[in-house]
């Protein structure tokens, strides 16, 4: 096998895949824009957008840096609660509430990350989970602010005002496109981060920590910053969830919410740009369709998950991408 014959053929056949990779934001955004046209229930489509964004943020840490957090519910939940509290208790407009939700999640990520980031592997997963449980009880106890076990009610956003235009947020399709606009902005941000010099550092730390350190990179700082950035995306998803549901249930902070995003990422394909989104979509579609004929929908989703992990370890989207490679 000589390289001279191999090289040109491989460049020719990968070129369109490279092209797709270069325009991943455009492709992902295009998909998001046409998605409700093929979905029977728009409310479910909004849910897929929100959890897709949550998984996207989680994947920045899990897939790209290689750190498994079991406490991302705290970041998602903080985004939702802060956004909700800003609207319910302070009467702030929706955009300010979203911004505060993201800032709140960034602060929570800095706190949890700052405490957990020096541990690794299973210890990191356990410490993040324990800290997320602390956040759960904190929000659970602060009944005056959060409604405790009844959840935070009364997040009623009827209209979205932007540049002098008024959108009816009650209309499902309008609501979808408002959320989609935020998700597309997040696609753009995430893609920039991945393509940036810091994105290269993230890859280097994932590939070989000792080498990255010897090359002059502060591995702990890199992990912490990535954790916080990941928290920002998850917080945005949480804030959108609060607006969409009109309520923040306390279950949003439950460790099931942390575990679910791990499943979604694995199902779709960790470390791929769009995989987590696919994973969230498949997960929620299965949940909704299967629960129509049996209450034991988790059994079916679990079986699909196990089959995926066993037979498609790269995930659904990851396997598809690998198939398309020559």
């Amino acid at each position, binding site marked *: 096998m000589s*390289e001279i014959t191999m*090289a040109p053929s491989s460049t020719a056949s990968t070129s369109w895949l490279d092209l797709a990779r270069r325009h991943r934001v455009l492709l992902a955004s295009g998909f998001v824009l046409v998605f409700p046209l093929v979905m029977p229930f728009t409310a479910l489509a909004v849910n897929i957008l929100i959890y897709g964004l949550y998984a996207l943020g989680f994947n920045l840490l899990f897939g790209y840096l290689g750190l498994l957090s079991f406490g991302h519910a705290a970041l998602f939940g903080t985004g939702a609660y802060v956004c909700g509290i800003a609207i319910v208790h302070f009467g702030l407009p929706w955009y300010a509430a979203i911004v505060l939700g993201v800032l709140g999640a960034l602060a929570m990520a800095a706190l949890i990350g700052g405490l957990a980031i020096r541990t690794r592997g299973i210890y990191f997963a356990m410490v993040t989970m324990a800290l997320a449980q602390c956040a759960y009880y904190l929000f659970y106890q602060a009944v005056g602010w959060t409604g405790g076990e009844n959840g935070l009610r009364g997040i009623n956003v009827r209209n979205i005002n932007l540049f002098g235009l008024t959108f009816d947020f009650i209309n499902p399709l309008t609501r979808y496109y408002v959320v989609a606009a935020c998700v597309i902005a997040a696609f753009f941000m995430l893609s*920039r*981060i991945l*393509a*940036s*010099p*810091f*994105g*290269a*550092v993230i*890859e*280097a730390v994932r*590939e*070989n920590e*000792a*080498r*990255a*350190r*010897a*090359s*002059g*990179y*502060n*591995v702990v*700082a*890199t992990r912490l*910053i990535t954790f916080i*950035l990941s928290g920002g995306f998850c917080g945005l998803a949480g804030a959108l969830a609060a607006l969409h549901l009109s309520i923040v249930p306390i279950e949003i902070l439950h460790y099931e919410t942390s575990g679910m995003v791990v499943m979604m990422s694995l199902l779709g394909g960790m470390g791929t740009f769009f995989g987590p989104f696919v994973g969230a979509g498949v997960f929620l579609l299965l949940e909704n369709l299967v629960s129509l004929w049996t209450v034991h929908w988790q059994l079916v989703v679990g079986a699909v998950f196990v089959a995926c992990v066993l037979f498609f370890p790269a995930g659904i989207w990851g396997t598809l991408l690998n198939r398309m490679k020559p």
Partner: protein
Amino acid sequence: MSVSEPSVILRTTEVSKSFGKFLALNNITAEFERGVITSIIGPNGAGKSTYFNLLSGAFAPSRGRVEFEGRDVTHLPQHRFAHLGIAKSFQITNIFPQLTVRENVRVGLQAFVSRYDIWRPRASLPGLVERADALLAMVGLQDRRERRACDLAHGEQRALEIGMALAANPKLLLLDEPTAGMSPEETRVMMDLIVKLAGERTVILVEHKMKLVMGISQRVMVLHHGELLAQGTPAEVRQNEQVKRVYLGQREH
């Protein structure tokens, strides 16, 4: 470069390192001269790798101090070493396996330009790819640039690691058994490469195989049971009675 640059680049003063009750290194005081190749040799278990790890900042000594260019670096975190001008290659190949050969070196170069920029495209950092390609040409990997690093042959991976160490443009290059696991042909290529690089910088080399380094080193340090047994020119070390007894008397492996 100033004319009065001190001739000692690195100094260890009474450094010891113990792991639990085991004393791996005992009270080693040594100086390393600028611009020469110094080899640290010794039989298995002599404490060579422990000493190397102290010099490269992988861990701090239990006692004593390490100075680089007169500055105390004993407790400096590892990632600061690269920025002082100390680069190393590991005993076990240490590369970024899933990245391309070029990206391996480019990331090494990037550490001195941009570490926390999350917004600009990395392609906009000027000159990094060109400099990476130049370094790859220097270590003989110009034809392998687009390959994933994990697909290279063992000797090529070692050469890549040297290229990555050179990306730091180091004043001091630390190499831990750079020919470990290499074929005789690969070993010869690597030795030529080390000699070529040494013209421009200080090299400290840890090596198990004594014969290999005698020809290329100006200075040799012999460690035995965690102690500094002898140091001097290769000729002096070869004449040293103690060294003959503990090292040369044994069959070369």
